[in-house]
């Protein structure tokens, strides 16, 4: 195995292109190192993208946040402006692992590891974040929800990697939130995770909603029917109940040691209700 730490995006793309499928991109390494050491993967080349300035910074472009793919959970949590704009995204990233893991684990790694239970992904999907992808044919943008195609699988072509995440400018009366359920308080993998982003107009009518659910299907689900249940309403209890029912209808989870199909489906609805009420409260946070 060879280790390379390029300092530009172009160098990284060239290295990845020349090695085809025999290479792996290294971000924070908290998943990749475990896979390497267990023999799950045996790459010929590791391309560490952490020395590339563009991939490790948080910038503001025309009012929009651009967050580098390897920015860590700890760094996100310490960025006051980002936290104020996208509290749900930051709280989701901060739920990943322990203090030690927070010092390394990144949004880009969490997404591209493509676990159905990744904590950051429902929040990113709900936020409408866009991935900037670099590859042999130049750059392209894809919504976060279009990256994962199944457990451990992404739509990225050989030689491509995620450089950064672009967030929209949060509307004045909008709010996002993320909650996950685990049987303990720390250090576990989501049984279910729900991220919701809602926007109200001046009359408190919901004009936009995005409801994303993790760990209940092979990839994170953006539940259009749940959004439709909220849009045009005052996000009252009856609308929230309809949104919850649509979340439960969308669930197609596995039975495993963390939860049965029935349990996961039930919990997904409970969490969706709680997350929606937190997001609703946050629509008023700038008033």
């Amino acid at each position: 195995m060879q280790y390379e730490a390029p300092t530009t995006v172009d160098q990284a793309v060239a290295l990845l292109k020349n090695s085809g499928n025999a290479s792996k991109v290294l971000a924070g390494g908290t998943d990749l190192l475990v896979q390497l050491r267990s023999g799950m993967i045996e790459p010929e080349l590791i391309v560490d993208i952490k020395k590339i300035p563009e991939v490790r910074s948080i910038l503001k472009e025309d009012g929009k946040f651009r967050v580098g793919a390897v920015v860590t959970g700890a760094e996100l949590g310490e960025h006051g402006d980002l936290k104020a704009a996208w509290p749900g995204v930051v709280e989701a990233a901060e739920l990943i692992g322990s203090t030690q893991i927070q010092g390394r684990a990144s949004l880009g790694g969490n997404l591209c590891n493509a676990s159905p239970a990744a904590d950051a992904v429902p929040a990113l999907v709900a936020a409408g974040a866009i991935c900037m992808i670099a590859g042999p044919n130049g750059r392209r943008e894809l919504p976060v929800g279009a990256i994962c195609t199944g457990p451990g699988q992404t739509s990225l072509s050989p030689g491509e990697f995620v450089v950064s995440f672009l967030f929209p400018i949060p509307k004045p009366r909008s709010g996002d939130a993320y909650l996950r359920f685990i049987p303990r308080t720390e250090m576990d993998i989501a049984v279910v995770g729900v991220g919701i982003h809602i926007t109200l107009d001046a009359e408190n009518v919901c004009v936009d909603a995005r409801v994303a659910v993790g760990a209940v299907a092979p990839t994170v689900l953006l539940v259009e029917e749940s959004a439709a249940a909220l849009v045009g309403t005052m996000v009252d209890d009856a609308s929230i109940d309809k949104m919850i029912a649509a979340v439960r209808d969308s669930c197609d989870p596995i039975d495993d040691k963390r939860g049965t199909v029935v349990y996961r489906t039930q919990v997904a609805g409970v969490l969706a209700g709680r997350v929606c009420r937190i997001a609703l409260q946050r629509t008023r946070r700038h008033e």
Partner: protein
Amino acid sequence: MSKVHVSTIINDDTVEFLCESEQTLLDVLRDDLRLTGSKEGCASGDCGACSVIMDGRLVCACLLLAAEAEGSTIETIEGMANGSDLHPLQQQFLDHAALQCGVCTPGFLIAAKALLDRNPDPTETEVRYWLAGNLCRCTGYDKIVRAVLDTAAETRN
């Protein structure tokens, strides 16, 4: 395959080493640099026995390739005491009997130091959450948490 040359500062000393690309930072610390205080427990980032501070951040040395440490500043348990003078956390761990078998202790001490470096006045809840990535199968954690809180109080006074 040629080895990777890595320059670091470890416990205030300039340390350069050659490593294989597959080696973790923990492998190099223990097997090549003979800094065996950091332990390998789970080798998957769950137990915290290999905790070190890299560029001011608490990390698991088992989840880092040694090559990734290029240019970084690392603190390990070996740098915690000042000669034979124990660090206040080490003394409080002894006073509270906050260890039994001792395998997790270097990781707990480094993790607790990283906490107090950032937050000299943590609540009990903050201590417990901060240390959630360090596992101890002997003490039941209470003595460890009390040792950290008492160190914080002692240092503030």
